[in-house]
């Protein structure tokens, strides 16, 4: 015949209780009928022959009670009472069911019931708000996608594509007159270059005059023979767009040249107004040629 005192002596401190969890500061009780969750002499459902708990199932709260009379009948041990949905009424029901019971159990039951109703309210509120849907990642698919992306990146050759597109747009004159690459002049100059150097410069000057009067640099030109070598390099750019060499937008080119091209002293001095963007090696040469 097992008195609760003996049970507690055994399970509580000395021997093994499978519901007991020990941590550094406290002992917990995993028993589902436990009222407080801690492992105490007064909260152990095994070690007290008169015990009560409040538990909830599917949103409804029940009061479970255990008395000494039913101790030999484990099946009928716990008596269940449904509590009303109304908070105050349920508290009264607890009181009238646990009348003449120890204060501790009554108090703890009501506390537990309060906590449970609070979290039930919270659940109901949260389900109304937006729910975050958790979608599992599939490792094989993730890996496959990553691999395909890498291959696509390599196949894309983005830099080349962008450069090509930009050059296309330049060709089709979408930029207007911001940039001017007077290839026309170069071509003609190149042809004349083969004939005679001096007559070449004259011809160029004539062309210049024909094309644009606004060119301020015409007078400041020098045609250096040394620059003819540079002209050859530009031969490749023969078929390029035909720029109307009317306006030189100083501002645009100014800003650009400041950004990227390093200033070439003598060339700049000669022609402060024209900003023609060339490859840097040929810059002074082409400039003088164009003039």
């Amino acid at each position: 015949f097992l008195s609760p005192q003996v049970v507690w002596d055994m399970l509580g401190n000395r021997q093994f209780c499978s519901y007991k969890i020990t941590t550094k500061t406290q002992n917990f009780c995993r028993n589902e009928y436990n009222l407080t969750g801690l492992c105490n002499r007064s909260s152990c459902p095994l070690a007290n022959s008169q015990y009560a708990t409040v538990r909830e199932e599917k949103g409804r709260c029940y009061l479970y009670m255990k008395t000494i009379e039913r101790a030999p009948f484990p099946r009928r041990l716990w008596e269940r009472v449904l509590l009303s949905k109304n908070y105050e009424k349920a508290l009264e029901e607890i009181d009238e069911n646990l009348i003449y019971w120890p204060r501790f159990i009554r108090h703890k039951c009501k506390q537990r019931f309060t906590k449970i109703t609070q979290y039930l309210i919270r659940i109901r509120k949260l389900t109304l708000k937006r729910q975050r849907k958790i979608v599992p990642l599939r490792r094989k698919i993730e890996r496959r996608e990553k691999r395909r992306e890498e291959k696509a990146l390599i196949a894309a050759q983005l830099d080349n594509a962008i450069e090509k597109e930009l050059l296309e747009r330049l060709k089709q004159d979408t930029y207007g007159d911001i940039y001017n690459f007077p290839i026309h002049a170069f071509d003609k100059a190149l042809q004349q270059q083969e004939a005679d150097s001096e007559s070449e410069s004259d011809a160029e000057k004539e062309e210049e005059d024909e094309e644009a009067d606004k060119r301020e640099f015409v007078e400041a030109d020098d045609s250096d023979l040394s620059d003819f070598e540079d002209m050859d390099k530009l031969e490749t750019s023969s078929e390029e767009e035909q720029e109307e060499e009317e306006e030189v937008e100083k501002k645009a080119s100014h800003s650009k040249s400041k950004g990227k091209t390093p200033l070439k002293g003598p060339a700049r001095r000669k022609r402060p107004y024209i900003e023609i963007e060339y490859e840097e090696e040929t810059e002074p040469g082409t400039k003088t040629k164009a003039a």
Partner: protein
Amino acid sequence: EKIAAKKKRRKEREALGDKAPPKAVPKTIENQRVYDETTVDPNDEEVAFDEATDEFAPYFNRQTVPKILITTSDRPRGRTVRFCEQLSTVIPNSHVYYRRGLALKRIIPQCIARDFTDLIVINEDRKIPNGLVLSHLPDGPTAHFRMSSVRLRKEIKRKGKEPTEHVPEVILNNFTTRLGHSVGRMFASLFPHDPQFIGRQVATFHNQRDYIFFRFHRYIFKSEKKVGIQELGPRFTLKLRSLQKGTFDSKFGEYEWIHKRREMDMNRRKFHL
């Protein structure tokens, strides 16, 4: 043996000299791509008519100026926040607002009331942005992308400065099919119509095998045939997951296109964008 065969072929070619047959074109996935019936022909009238009357018509007719709202999912982490800021510098006339647990369904009418034309939501997972929802606001299509390999500005190897306030140009590459066309128009409608060439900035959306790569560069023309580009600004890749007809609505929306993994990933040569 492959090397031996190659050598032999090369010797034959050299031996033949001028009479050698032209080099064989290597097979690439792009070459072998399964022909998609919805590929848009530039002269297609139906498509042209469609595009004149769909939801982007006001933009392309210059009736509306794009105004973008960028936001994230709940509780964005540092990386996502920084990415949002950088994105807002790339896209002119865009504003970043924190989500703070607001329901999208409720902020959409507010956005429309305040004249926003587009909404971008960047979804986050484990501290990195991994999804993008782009929704054209006055009742426009909503596209949901999966975002990957996001690089912030400081992670890109370059020595350039910040992007300026100039309106960048837009390059849309390789959007061939009908679906790709609509997605491309969606991207185009994010940016104002008239790029400021002074700024010399270009935003590129390049579609390759259904992956859309976004890059932001500054270009400079060194000569007629040479252009230099310098990457500034964030970069990311997108993969389209679904396209919805109306604004964002996950339950009742009418889906124009969903990525069905089973069917669509089976064939390696078939792409949809």
